[in-house]
């Protein structure tokens, strides 16, 4: 990919890109091929200088993620039965309840993990996908960083789902207390998965094409 990042930092226009050099790197194993190559000689994965369907997939996964994120917030995440008394909590409802109970830190963590991060991811991915065509606003390096953060942080949103899964598995004490996952748990897990796929579908090389296009 970037052969000499350090030297070229801040001077993107002057860099000779692989594409211009007629080379293509395998995104899987990193081996550099000739542009004409379709399949990586080392690992056998498909290679292309630019993924022509990348943006489509980003948008599709993003849409799916947003769609399932709606029931994830409307329906209850946890169905807790304590001494025959059943209570259902949606994500935001749970946060508010925790807040009312004075557990501000926990409420904050849940809020960030379940609301801020997913929504931030939606926005970030949408921005990246939209901004592929334009060179303005955030510079290439910033966008590259944003992409990396989104890629990295996406999996942590699954914490919520794991908590629900573990609670459901452990707290099955019949009458005393029972925790069951609600519809929202599945929706949220899907939403996270879809956004991760969406982020993964994004071809970061597209970020730089805008600058090249400017050059041309």
């Amino acid at each position, binding site marked *: 990919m970037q052969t000499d990042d350090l030297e070229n930092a801040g001077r993107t226009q002057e860099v*000779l890109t692989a*594409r*211009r*050099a*007629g*080379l293509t790197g395998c995104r899987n194993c990193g081996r550099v091929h*000739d*542009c*004409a190559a379709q399949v990586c000689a080392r690992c056998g994965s498909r290679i292309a*200088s*630019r993924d*022509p*369907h990348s943006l*489509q*997939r980003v948008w*599709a*996964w993003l*849409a*799916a*993620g947003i*769609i*399932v994120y*709606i*029931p994830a917030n409307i*329906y209850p995440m946890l169905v807790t039965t304590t*001494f*025959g*008394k*059943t*209570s259902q909590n949606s994500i935001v409802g749970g946060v508010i309840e925790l807040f009312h109970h004075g557990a501000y830190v926990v409420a904050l963590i849940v809020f960030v993990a379940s609301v801020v991060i997913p929504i931030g991811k939606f926005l970030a991915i949408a921005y990246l996908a939209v901004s592929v065509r334009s060179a303005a606003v955030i510079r290439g390096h910033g966008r590259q960083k944003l992409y990396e953060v989104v890629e990295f942080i996406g999996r942590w949103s699954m914490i919520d789902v794991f908590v629900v899964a573990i609670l459901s598995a452990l707290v099955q004490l019949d009458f005393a207390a029972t925790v069951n996952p609600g*519809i929202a748990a599945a*929706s949220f897990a*899907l939403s996270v998965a*879809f956004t991760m796929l969406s982020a993964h*579908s994004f071809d970061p090389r597209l970020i730089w094409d805008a600058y090249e296009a400017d050059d041309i």
Partner: protein
Amino acid sequence: MTDPKPAELDVSRPRQSFLRNLSFVWLVPILALVLSLAIAWRSYSERGALIEISLSNASGVTAGETTIRYRDVVVGVVEDVDFTTDLSRVVLSARIDKTVADLLPEEAMFWVVRPEVTAQRISGLSTVFSGVYIEASFKPSPGGSARSFEGLDDAPLTGVGEEGTYVTIRARDGNRLSPGAPVLYRGIEVGRIETPHLSDTGDSVVVGTFIAAPYDRFLTTATRFWDTSGFSVSLGAAGINLEVGNLSSLVTGGIAFDTLFSGGEPVEAGSVFELFADEQSARQSLVSGIGPNAVRFSIDFDGSVEGLTVGSPIEYRGLRVGEVSAIAAFLTETTEGQRVRLRATVALDPQAMGLPADAGTEESVDFLASEVEAGLRARLAPANLFSSALIIELAETPDAPPATLGRPEKGYPVLPSVQVDLPDFTATAEGVFERINALPVEELIDQAISVMASIEAVATAEGTRAMPDALVSLIEDSRALVASEETQALPGEIRAAIAELRGVVDELRARGAIDRLVSALENADAASANLSTASERVPALIEDLRALAAKANELGAEELVASATRVLDSANALIGTDEARALPPALTAALGEVEATLSELREGGAVENANATLTSTRAAADAVAEATAALPELSARLDALIAQSERLVTAYGAQSNFNADALAALREVRAAARTIAQLARAIERNPNSLIIGR
């Protein structure tokens, strides 16, 4: 750094055809959308119907948490708790599952289930932790569209869907009937009673009773209900009987029923049954049961009705036909001013009086009205010898002043009553013994003893001692007479008599008359154990006397002396026996024993003793009666004997010492006979006086 040689690169823009560029990935968001919509639609369609339940209070009900259950399955949840506009009631808005809501009829019942601990049961314990819930009970009816309901304050006794029969039970009081108390059939709980309430007239308590199917088929007209509350101890001929119901009915009361004979007709819902105090009286009621179609009457009494209680039997020609259901005093206006009269309300069973089983009130009243025309009156009577309890007798009283069955507009028809003198208990019981004491038994015995004394006096008299010599000369004369032809012609019987007389005279001469008498007294057999056997022997004595008299008439002195001696022997044997002498003390002792038993009874002694005493008293009375049957005959014979004897003695001639003594003895005997006759008449006139004392 060497510049890499740029390779040929086909740099071209992606194809612009939108459709051809369309990726299959787009199926994913479409699928997600469809899925989300499906979920949304499903939850919307399952959202259920909103119903409103109004309650007097909503204690424990929390919006969003309190569930609504049907057969203990959650079918809905309370969404909102609000008031009616005038704040008089609480209105709960609840979402009910659509499937359930579609079957909700208007009469569906809702009530709040709270933890409840009563003597009878502990219920709703789960709600201690989970909070209260609202239980619904209804009979699912398709097309039900009711959405507004009145909630109940308490759980109903029976669910709407429960099959069974409602009957009404009439009880004397509601003391031991608590709502929800169980109804037992052979110890199995088959139903419950509702809250008891007073009847319209206020003289009984009626309580609705639900008998669940299939047990309601055991209800027939032959069914009797009784109270099983608590335990009962009864003392009877079979010993002490302790009956304890089940624990629940011990605490909360309960009633049981049984079908006591076969052949009862099935009952319809709403039939009325009487509640009996215990199983025994329920079973006894069969003999003259107070059926479900009992007719009520009032009976007014002038005097005291002490001893008459609610439940006292009404007897009609000795048959129990009903019982007293209430007693009250009231004021009446008479010509002399106000008077307090006592009014007993009685329930009469038409069936027990011989009317058809389906006789209505009118029919029964008409029947009694005609009976009253014919002289039927109500009167008080003692229940039995040993209690001061009273019963009401419906008896035909021909000499009663004419009266008719009163039919007031308000209240029950009034049966006319007559006043009777009621001996109280002590008078009744003691009267019996007084009468027994007053019987001239002792007098009779005294008379007999004095007869004995007279006879002894005769026997010991100088004249009697001188008799043998006189007799010898008499016999000498007689021998001459016998030698005569006339005497030869006499029957052999007379010869034998003379031989016997000679033997007697010889014996008299050998031992002396007194010794003979004394030994006769000493050797008397123990034949007479009581008056009965004694009287059996009396006719034999009379036969002897008669034979004596006959012989004396025929023969004269010789035979007389011998026969007289024998008679005296027999009389002595009879009267002088230890048994006969012991009779009066024995009677007195028996009376003492009866009295002792009676006092023991008064102190709450065993009924068994009473029964035994009654039996023995009755046996004694029977024996006395038996004995007295022979008494008139005895006195008649004695009279005849005396008449004959007197004739004989007069014919004997001279006014000797012996004559005078014998006459005195005969007078004594006559006095004895009169006494016996008196006793016999007294007993004959009123044989029952010995037993019942009235």
